[in-house]
């Protein structure tokens, strides 16, 4: 699937005026995002959330980082699609420079990325940033 850009997503979500449409959009994004095959959902790739689980696979291609993710919860998968729209196929520098909190605020979804939410999203963001930092050094 071709992910929309982070700006496209901000524009799309701004267009909806009720929460149901917004959540439906996120659910649909989650459904469209290809997950990981069973055998790729290994323990070392698992980012444990308290309520849902998230797996992350990364590789580097031509100086850009590529990510594949999966979650057992569809809304988390949709939120991950939003995260990947910002981070996927970007250089480590671009990743480190991106303000994810501001992005989620612009999406009016900041509550989902607060550290207190046990959905694994924050942990994924930290992991991606860690990978980017390693790549820069």
């Amino acid at each position, binding site marked *: 699937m071709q992910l929309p850009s982070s700006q496209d997503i901000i524009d799309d979500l701004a267009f909806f005026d009720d*929460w*149901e449409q917004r*959540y439906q959009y996120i659910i649909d994004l989650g459904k469209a995002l290809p997950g990981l095959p069973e055998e790729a959902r290994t323990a070392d790739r698992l980012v444990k959330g308290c*309520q849902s689980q998230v797996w992350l696979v990364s590789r580097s291609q031509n100086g850009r980082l590529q990510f594949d993710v999966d979650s*057992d*919860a*569809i*809304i988390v998968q949709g939120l991950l699609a939003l995260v990947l729209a910002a981070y996927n196929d970007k250089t480590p520098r671009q990743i480190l420079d991106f303000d994810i909190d501001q992005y989620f605020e612009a999406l009016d979804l900041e509550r989902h990325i607060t550290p207190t939410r*046990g959905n694994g999203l924050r942990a994924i963001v930290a992991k991606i940033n860690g990978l980017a930092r390693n790549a820069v050094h």
Partner: protein
Amino acid sequence: MSLDVTALRQQFPILKTQIDGKPLIYLDNAATTQKPQAVIDALVEFYTTCNANVHRGSHHLSDEATRRYEKARTTVARFINANVNEEVIWTSGTTESLNIVAHGLAQKLQSGDEVIITEMEHHANLVTWQQACIKSGASLVVIPISEDGELDLAKFKAALNNRTKLVAFPHVSNALGTINPIKEMTAMAKAAGALVSVDGAQGIAHGGVDVQAIGCDFYSFSGHKLFGPTGIGCLWGRKDVLEDWPIWQTGGEMIADVEYQQTTFGTLPFRLEAGTPNISGAIGMAAAIDWFMGLDQHAIQTHEKALLTRANELAADMQGLRLIGTAKNKVGIMSFLLDGAHPADIGFILDRQGIAIRTGDNCAQPLMKRLNIPGTARASFSIYNTIEEVEAFFRALKKAQTMLA
């Protein structure tokens, strides 16, 4: 007389909260209950009028604080029908209470001894005993439950023997809502000569706990699940057992005589209460009990039953909904799964509609594994919930089902 729920709700300021413009529907009562104004007032009043440290009284305020703090102990003792006040030990909550028992037990256990628990434990009533067994070389024996979430009493009885040193079980399961036959189980365990520790975290809020009638040795509970503050709870233990139970923490308040190389410890209840206690918490917890006991107990029990009955009716009508925990004898805790919907997704969509439920493993990972499920969504009802809220919850659930389909 039936319960005037509208008037009851007026006493809980937080229930007026709006979430995203929708009235809060609080259905996470098994995690913690909300606090009535009477409890909030008691906390404010304590700090406003008589804050001082207790049992160090050389002045008026300290005497007054000590008087109220010890009166709170009496309130708890009466509430659970303890024999004497010294049997009530203040703790930070159920978890600390269970740790006091497990820590002491670990010193008494030897390899070959057995500790019995059940498949329906909260981690607090599992990891504690597990670690005591690991330290001492004793074995942990786990009694199975049925698919409905009822304990297998025949297996329980069969597991008891002269190596059984302690039996631990929950009064009520936080994940399944099952009310266990604790008197019967205690009698069986006592006949085998074992100590009995009841995890009362979920049992206490439903009233009518009588530790003498139960016949157990320990009963642990938290204030916050009983309309009281967080950070306060109790360990009730039989006096003859607690009197020489291994000390828990050491420090001030729990001593009689201190020299550099040795200490004589104090007597009950202080020997198990080191340091400055949670004074306001104890007073707040007593205020919660006084408030609770001021309610018509029969009316609130009828109301709680009505909420669960209505929820069960609506659950039976809902396609794709599977209840987790269908014991005959249950409190208003409803764990469930929806076909094709992850509990976390259900939680997200309910939250957006102002409805607070719990999702996840319910602090009972081995139980989830035993039931072969990743976790559940859980709605838990309290006395201030209304039938309308239960109905709104199911409407919201249907919306979640449609959106996630």
